[in-house]
């Protein structure tokens, strides 16, 4: 599934980061590499962007950007 499909409080492991090269590299460089565990902390009041926690860091990402990230949900 896509990262953007996760609901608040749900966790997942990153499988693949897609999108254009620049965006992909940006996302990877912020530490969201394959195998990283992420948790969706919350969505902004207007439902976009979303905040996620990875390696103890809080990051924000637009929903359209999160659509490019394929994840596997962890229960």
């Amino acid at each position, binding site marked *: 599934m896509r990262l953007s499909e996760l609901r608040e409080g749900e966790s997942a492991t990153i499988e693949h*980061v897609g999108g254009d*090269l*620049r*965006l*992909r*590299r*940006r*996302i*990877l*460089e*912020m*530490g969201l*590499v*394959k195998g990283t565990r992420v948790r969706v*902390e*919350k969505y*902004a*009041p*207007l*439902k*976009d*962007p979303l*905040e996620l926690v990875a*390696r*103890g*860091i*809080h*990051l*924000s*990402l*637009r929903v359209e*950007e999160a659509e490019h990230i394929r994840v596997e949900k962890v229960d």
Partner: protein
Amino acid sequence: MAPRRLTIALAGNPNAGKTSVFNHLTGTRQKVGNWPGVTVEKKEGHIRRGDREITVVDLPGTYSLTPFSLEEVIARNYLLDERPDVVIAVIDATNLERSLYLATQIRELDCKVLFALNMADMARARGLIIDGRKLAQLLDVPVVFTVANRGEGMEALLEEAIRLAESETPPDRSRRVKYSRDLEEAIGRLAGFLAARLGDRLAWLPRWTAVKLLEDDEIVKQRLVAAAPDEARAVLQAAAALRRHLAERYDEDPQIVLTDERYGFIAGIVREVQRSDARRRVDVSRNIDLVLTHRFLGFPIFLFFIWAMFELTFTLGEAPVGWIEAAVEAAARAAQAVLPEGPLRGLVADGIIAGVGSVLKFLPNILILFFCIALFEDTGYMARTAFLMDRIMHLIGLHGKSFIPMLMGFGCNVPAVMAARTLESPRDRILTILITPFMSCSAKLPVYVVLAGAFFGERAGSVIFGLYLLGILLSILTGRLLRSTLLAGGDAPFVMELPPYRMPMAKSLLIHMWDRSRVFLRKMGGTILLGSVIVWALSSFPQVPATAPGGAPDAGVEAWSGAPGTEGSRALQVRESYLGRLGRAVAPVFAPLGIEWREAVALLSGFVAKEIVVSTLGVLHAVGEEGEGGDTLGRALSSSGMTPLAALSMMVFVLLYLPCLATTTAIRRETGSTRWMLFSIAYNTAVAWIVSFAVYQGGRALGYA
């Protein structure tokens, strides 16, 4: 013996505490400027140690050395070209992996690197324990523990940096990132090829250059071609072939593979040096965020903070602004008393003192505004405002961070334009700067008050509110227009860190505030001074003898021209001056907008500062100082034949036309380009003319006179 010179560069992620380290190392002996050709702030500090003169350079905060953002390019070019004696990589202990991602890249450049392992206390509070000795051993890098915001470990850091800078042993090249076999093979082959083909002409390490070529790094490619055009072609061909081979082998772009593997290498190190304590304490920052970015409470709280910021800026600033105005007036009077009658007196009192005063009086507002901004930034709230507003700003093709500068535009465009610095992408920054002047600044308000008050009576408030809305509407339209034309391309990816909330340090806040205000004072003061002198000269020459008869009889002037030394002679002076002549010369341009020559002159003089529009109207309609901004001027305007429709057209023009002198100077400075400044002047004025034309002619067509 000549003093030994050493250069220490500070590198690190944003929010890693780099600025604190810099402030504590250098104290107040700092020099703030810009990096050549760009508007990214460059900070330098100087320290003396024995016979050593040490320069500390604060590199822009970055997450990587990929040449994507301006900051990254600057940081990397500095390390490559200026070759500092030692680089201190500020490592955020609470965020070891990402900090090491940057630090290992610096290490790959073959610089002498020293780690300042910062905020280990915070890491420990979160249950993370880091073995500094092990880290030092694994990467062959000296590690110093620091708590920069309390100044701990600074002395040891400086000593270690000096020792490392002066040591003869080169860094151990075997302790660098190791990639997987196929990558290492490709790197090895390309590096060998580079060394053989280019030899001494290769300014950088062959291995590093090879890695960058495999990443398809545009800057490295360009510089290689510039250094050795013939050989570079062969090298680039070889690199392209290897890239294709690797892409096939990994089924992925080599850039991505290299990034992935760097993180893999780092993950291995982190596993060995960091222990995680299972007993995690409560995350205070997270609790704060639960409230501040709460679904329902987030926006009201945000609005409250913004309101509080404006309230502080303009109410708290009111008194000191008054003092400065009084002091300026007193200085002007003193100059008038001391200097003999003549052009010199006018130049000093009306030109220089009044001109400088017109800038100086904004200082209290600017100090307070920048203090608030520094508070937002240092606590970490700024990132949250971007988080809250991004959805809305994205509709105009802008980043959430554009909101604050635009909002500040309602106060004063000068700090607003300067606040656009918080935007990372140059394109976003320029776009934000260009639409900010449509936010109706507080200096335009007196013009609206006079005109709307005189012509719209009870509906004045609604008219003024409508003007503000019109400004916002045009900023949105302009944003969309520019985004699809001159500044095309998507806005920067929003991937942004939401740093933990921190208690701001008074020292850092004050340094932040003063740095920016100082820039305002110095640069604006110079240009404003020159501009005011020019406008003064244009309105004072050629000089009309006080008793000379007027030119063509004019309703407003005629009644007064007989009384020398009164308002009448002032009106006559301005009317017959170059500025007056200019106003009458351009009057035909303004005629279709319902704006006659006196208003045109006022608009021209408004370039210095928008408030001057009112005082110039006062002079030209000969109502005198006490009448300015009051009913007298309004009555004079109606009796001169201005209609409510013409007044509305005039207000629309004032709202939209070219930004004031201080703002245009700020635009030039912050965009780093005279062309963007000229664009802003031309575009805004054109928009103003078109909209005013539509208002006036449309109104007439609808039967309003």
